[in-house]
């Protein structure tokens, strides 16, 4: 990636973070009265997803989906209005966990694992057209333990359906650490189905871009599923208002220093002599 591209991505990632911060503030102010799950810490994956998505692609996401919606091209104002429980994208019927934009081919669902088979349906439709695009099925590490995921991996593999299974592994399914819930290596879970799997540091923009690129290439060109597991850190609780006592303070402090995708990209940009003034402009 060129220095200019990286700077643009840096700016984009700040917009994603600001969007999430504003949603968090609206919970505090009472404008949002429902549950709110923010993707602060997941910005590199969101930004790199937008880099690889093309015109006819679809995205089916989870309860933590704002960044994927923005990546898919959902109008930010309509999106914000729906999240703020106003007459937005879905006239206030869906709210932040149930966002639907048929034009952008984006949807998300509040039931963990339920979006994965639905993604397979978008891919079925795409498979019936020559240039039908592909579908990204976003999930968290917790989702990976749902039976629906295995069923869908098998079905997409046996029918040759263009699905990129994209896992954001933030280590925690609500309060339970991955080590207490999850056996084996997540990116190898497609192996038995013949699904190529990749893992990367989802807080590193360039690594994420490259790894997603490999998976998208396979799925787009060979018309078959692929799996990418990106490791990230969730900087907020599971939901806004979560006391988050299950994660040690030291772990969170350490993550803030080492796993913040914005800080990491800032350091990278400084290392390639990007002027501070340009960084500050991107941050505001």
């Amino acid at each position, binding site marked *: 990636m060129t220095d200019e591209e990286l700077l643009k991505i840096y700016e984009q990632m700040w917009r994603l973070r600001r969007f999430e911060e504003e949603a968090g503030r609206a919970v505090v102010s009472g404008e949002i009265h429902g549950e709110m799950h923010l993707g602060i810490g997941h910005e590199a994956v969101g930004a790199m997803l937008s880099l690889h998505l093309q015109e006819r692609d679809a995205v089916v996401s989870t309860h933590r989906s704002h960044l994927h919606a923005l990546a898919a091209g959902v109008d930010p104002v309509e999106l914000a209005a729906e999240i703020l429980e106003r007459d937005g994208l879905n006239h*206030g*019927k869906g709210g932040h966990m149930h966002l639907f934009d048929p034009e952008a081919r984006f949807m998300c669902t509040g039931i963990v694992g339920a979006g994965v088979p639905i993604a397979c*349906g*978008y891919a079925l439709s795409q498979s019936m057209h020559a240039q039908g695009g592909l579908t990204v099925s976003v999930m968290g590490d917790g989702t990976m333990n749902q039976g629906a995921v295995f069923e869908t991996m098998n*079905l997409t593999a046996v029918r040759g359906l263009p699905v990129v299974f994209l896992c954001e592994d933030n280590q925690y399914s609500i309060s339970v650490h991955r080590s207490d819930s999850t056996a084996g290596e997540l990116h190898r879970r497609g192996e038995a189905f013949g699904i190529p799997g990749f893992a990367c540091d989802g807080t590193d923009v360039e690594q994420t871009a490259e790894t997603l690129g490999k998976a998208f290439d396979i799925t787009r060109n060979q018309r078959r599923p692929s799996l990418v597991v990106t490791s990230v850190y969730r900087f907020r609780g599971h939901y806004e208002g979560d006391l988050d006592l299950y994660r040690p303070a030291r772990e969170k402090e350490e993550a803030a220093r080492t796993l913040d995708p914005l800080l990491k990209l800032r350091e990278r940009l400084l290392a390639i002599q990007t002027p501070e003034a340009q960084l500050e402009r991107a941050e505001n």
Partner: protein
Amino acid sequence: MPDPGRPGDRRTGAHLVAAALRQEMLRDASIVVFGEDVAKLGGVFGATRGLARQFGDRRVFDTPVSETAFLGMAVGAAQAGLRPVTELMFVDFLGVCFDQILNQLAKNTYMSGGRLQVPVVLRTAVGCIGSAAQHSQVLSATFAHIPGLKVFYPGSPGDLQGLLVAAIRDDNPVVFLEHKWLLKTRLSELPFNDAQPEDSEIQPSPLGQVRCLREGTDITIVTAGYMAQLALIAASDLEQDGISANVIDLRTLVPLDREGLARAARGAPFLLVLDDDYQAYGMSGEVMATIVEQLGRDAPLMSRHAVDVPIPAAAVLEAEVVPSVSSIKQAARALVKE
């Protein structure tokens, strides 16, 4: 008014379903059919026989035994512009994929603020032909309880085709309940056969319109699905005893024709609701409540005959539990003589 059964009509309900699917698939290339054993085998009840050969693997295909995956696939495919007709082999398998029905299929149109349509037809075999508690249920009320789903429960061969065509053309999700006896029985052996001749174009049946299958003045029997056929046999037997029975087929549980139901209930001083689904919190209670809401003190005296325990395996025990011609007559007599 009822047509007499046509002697010599060797078709079964399964033939009718396949013919309706064929007609619609020829009309609309966006219709795809998938589910367990629907392609090579043509469905365990034969209701998709011949479709795979005619339309090919892209439009008619077998799925793995993964109900969650393929029902979810139906939801996504419908949202992306296809019109999937998917088969849940036995309705009893609902439990393994309920989230896709309860939280996705039924709700996505609503939650999208009307921006999405989810035109899925979920065909599924219901009712008791032996095989005990996990392969004999109807579960119609389980679906009908959920806002966002239409539920069709045809009781006649004509509706098996006409309501299926209506379901396929509907832009909303429809659960289409096919009673196994209706699928298996030769049409000539049914008391009420309103099927169109083999090569005629199948017209969609109307939705939310009850139908009177038999007129009577002493008691109204309200039912749906294959029980309508049994009710007709029971009604002609009751006639011999001097009880004149009116038989009303609900046809679609959602939408429910509440006004038509109330009109029909005015026709006789007694009303029996007959259901092969579970009684508790079910169709029988819904029908009775509707009639009382509409007619108040003018409502007929009502009772119900439905299933209220799991279906047992042994034939002799099954006969105690599942409504039959004799148990329907008994329930009707008990009510009239009360």
